[in-house]
């Protein structure tokens, strides 16, 4: 170690770095230790594979270039890109410069950070190029910082209607982060004023400062720069800036196939700490845009979970429509984390639903290749059941109507509220009914049930939502639809669109009946109908606001009929819409065969 290259002001910086890495090591080890068996197996299976290379690429693309934020808004993307990539390059090129200067690879660890202070004007390889590049990078980072500052004041300029409210520790970290680069600029410039060793930016500013008594404040400025770095590093693990490191870990785990479990694991903590509190989820949330509730969004939920101050109203006030998950640039499964926290609100471990007698469902019914499970919601919109019966008959398909007596639920509403053990009981009961029937296909009319059967149950038979089933019938030529001259729009229900990527089937069916018109929010950008079973906090008036927002979008093209494929959406729309224009896809099919 070369002690000529030392000044006491490096101590705060060194202290900060040590504290930061100790904290990071403790956090990472404890999270990885708390992964569950399935998640560990996934890592073991995939760690030596091309998935790791893919993860490295994604980490570079997302953590440095922020491609997803660029997609949301280019200026916002540039802001994150300049801060992340610019800062990293300042460190990397700074190290290159220090190595070139010293002529050996091992330099004092702080030399790259405080280089201009220690440089004594002697010549070293590529001096001018490196000085120019360093100044350019500083400019680049400062431009991002300027945008960040503007965003705090006028968020709309950067494409965001709202920015996130901060916690006190966030504020300390934010202020120290904002001070780091201007202080570095001032420190380097005032050194340049004395030593004449600056580049195009620092030297010019240095020349401007030269009329002041620069000698007096050059060391204090380097002290201030070092202290700002120290503060940022010390506070970082307890603030949103923890995402800088955690996101990299998350990307690797996700690429290796780790997914969120139904209960809290280390992976949940990794996801929670990967949230950068960018606030993009606030703008897409209908609770904010329609119902004007702006303190329950995923970003605040995750903040409260991290600060251990979660209020149950915030955990419960969510439609689980997955719009925020879709928009999240980090891809955090916030709705799943909500379910985990709802589960934590307490669960009774006593036997449930013993009154359900599984034998009576298929008893006395002839076996058939198709099982029809209407689902609870379909039973309150009987038109859909009648239409489905008609479609089965017209297509000449034999079927067993399992829940004809409206008597069993698929369990997803329970799961959404965090009653996992109870949902498991229903799952076991229904699985045994389905297995005993010996059928090959399960058709359901309710997207909630579809989601449940397709993703939660491990059924060894094909599960179809009725849109998929009708599409298959049309393909096989079993249904002949007559095309009419009607104007139709389609509402994608959350559970089968964002939840299961069923986008094309309903559109093909509708196009063979009438003229499908597109709407502003469709496919994965679809709006929630407001009737979501996942939210028990909303009152009727607030839910109606969400419904009318969605109806506004749907009625914009002035259609003859609004088509949906979810009984719950249909019921919710019908309640809030004066004219009788809302139809389920099975109803319009049934009318046209």
């Amino acid at each position: 170690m070369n002690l000529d290259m030392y000044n006491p002001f490096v101590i705060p910086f060194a202290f900060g770095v040590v504290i930061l890495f100790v904290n990071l090591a403790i956090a990472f080890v404890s999270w990885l230790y708390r992964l569950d068996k399935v998640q560990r197996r996934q890592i073991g299976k995939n760690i030596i594979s091309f998935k790791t290379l893919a993860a490295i690429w994604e980490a570079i693309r997302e953590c440095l270039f922020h491609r997803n934020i660029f997609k949301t808004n280019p200026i916002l993307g540039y802001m994150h890109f300049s801060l992340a990539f610019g800062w990293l390059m300042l460190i990397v090129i700074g190290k290159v410069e220090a190595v070139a200067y010293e002529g050996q690879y091992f330099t004092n660890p702080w030399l790259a950070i405080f280089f201009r202070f220690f440089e004594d004007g002697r010549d070293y390889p590529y001096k001018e190029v490196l000085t120019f590049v360093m100044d350019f990078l500083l400019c680049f980072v400062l431009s991002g910082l300027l945008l960040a500052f503007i965003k705090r004041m006028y968020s709309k300029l950067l494409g965001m209607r709202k920015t996130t409210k901060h916690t006190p520790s966030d504020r300390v970290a934010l202020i120290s982060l904002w001070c780091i680069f201007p202080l570095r600029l001032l420190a380097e410039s005032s050194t340049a004023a004395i030593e004449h060793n600056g580049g195009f930016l620092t030297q010019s500013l240095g020349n401007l400062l030269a009329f002041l008594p620069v000698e007096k404040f050059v060391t204090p400025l380097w002290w201030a720069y070092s202290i700002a770095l120290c503060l940022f590093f010390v506070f970082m693990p307890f603030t949103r800036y923890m995402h800088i490191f955690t996101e990299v870990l998350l990307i690797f785990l996700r690429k290796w196939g780790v997914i969120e479990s139904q209960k809290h694991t280390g992976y949940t903590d990794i996801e929670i700490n990967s949230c950068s509190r960018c606030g993009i989820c606030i703008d897409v949330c209908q609770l904010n845009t329609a119902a004007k509730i702006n303190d329950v969004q995923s970003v605040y939920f995750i903040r409260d979970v991290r600060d251990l101050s979660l209020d149950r109203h915030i955990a419960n006030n969510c439609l689980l429509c997955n719009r925020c998950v879709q928009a999240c640039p980090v891809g955090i499964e916030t709705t799943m984390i909500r379910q985990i926290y709802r589960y934590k609100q307490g669960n009774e471990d006593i036997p449930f639903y013993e009154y359900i007698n599984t034998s009576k469902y298929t008893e006395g019914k002839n076996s058939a290749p198709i099982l029809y499970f209407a689902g609870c919601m379909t039973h309150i919109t009987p038109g859909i059941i009648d239409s489905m019966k008609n479609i089965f008959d017209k297509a000449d398909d034999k079927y067993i109507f399992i829940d004809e007596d409206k008597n069993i639920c698929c369990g997803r509403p329970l799961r959404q509220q965090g009653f996992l053990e109870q949902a498991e009981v229903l799952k076991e009961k229904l699985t045994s009914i389905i297995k005993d029937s010996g059928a090959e296909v399960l058709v359901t009319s309710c997207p909630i049930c579809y989601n449940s059967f397709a993703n939660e149950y491990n059924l060894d038979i094909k599960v179809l939502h009725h849109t998929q089933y009708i599409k298959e019938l049309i393909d096989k030529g079993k249904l002949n639809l007559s095309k009419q001259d009607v104007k139709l729009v389609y509402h994608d229900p959350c559970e089968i669109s964002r939840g299961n990527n069923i986008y094309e089937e309903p559109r093909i069916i509708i196009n063979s009946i009438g003229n499908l018109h597109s709407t502003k929010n469709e496919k994965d950008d679809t709006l929630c109908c407001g009737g979501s079973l996942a939210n028990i906090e909303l009152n009727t008036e607030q839910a109606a606001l969400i419904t009318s927002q969605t109806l506004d979008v749907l009625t914009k093209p002035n259609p003859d009929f609004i088509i949906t494929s979810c009984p719950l959406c249909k019921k919710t729309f019908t309640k809030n819409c004066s004219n009788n224009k809302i139809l389920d896809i099975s109803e319009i099919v049934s009318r046209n065969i």
Partner: protein
Amino acid sequence: MKFGFSLNTSRTIDLDKLDKKKQESFTDDIPTFKRCFACGGCAATCSAQQHTDFNVLKCNLLFRRGEFETLEKELEKCMLCGKCTLVCPRNVNTRAMIIKMRRTLNTKTNL
């Protein structure tokens, strides 16, 4: 000899001795609870009702009377499918009511 019916055991509920705290905090959470006029629409559409004598109205009554032990056993029967809420003519959030009752009564609730 079995006559097919029996007498109810006599019991007294002294409403004056009830600790009303649970009910009060509950009504603050779900104000629509007060709107219920016991029409029974919820019970008519209930999935659990097809198998057992579960009844949202009964839960409502037991909760008001403070018969929490009986109520807890009743609440276990609900599958939370949400039909009752959708058919309610008074827009009572019956489903939220059941969930909150479960969590209000559950001693293990930690949130």
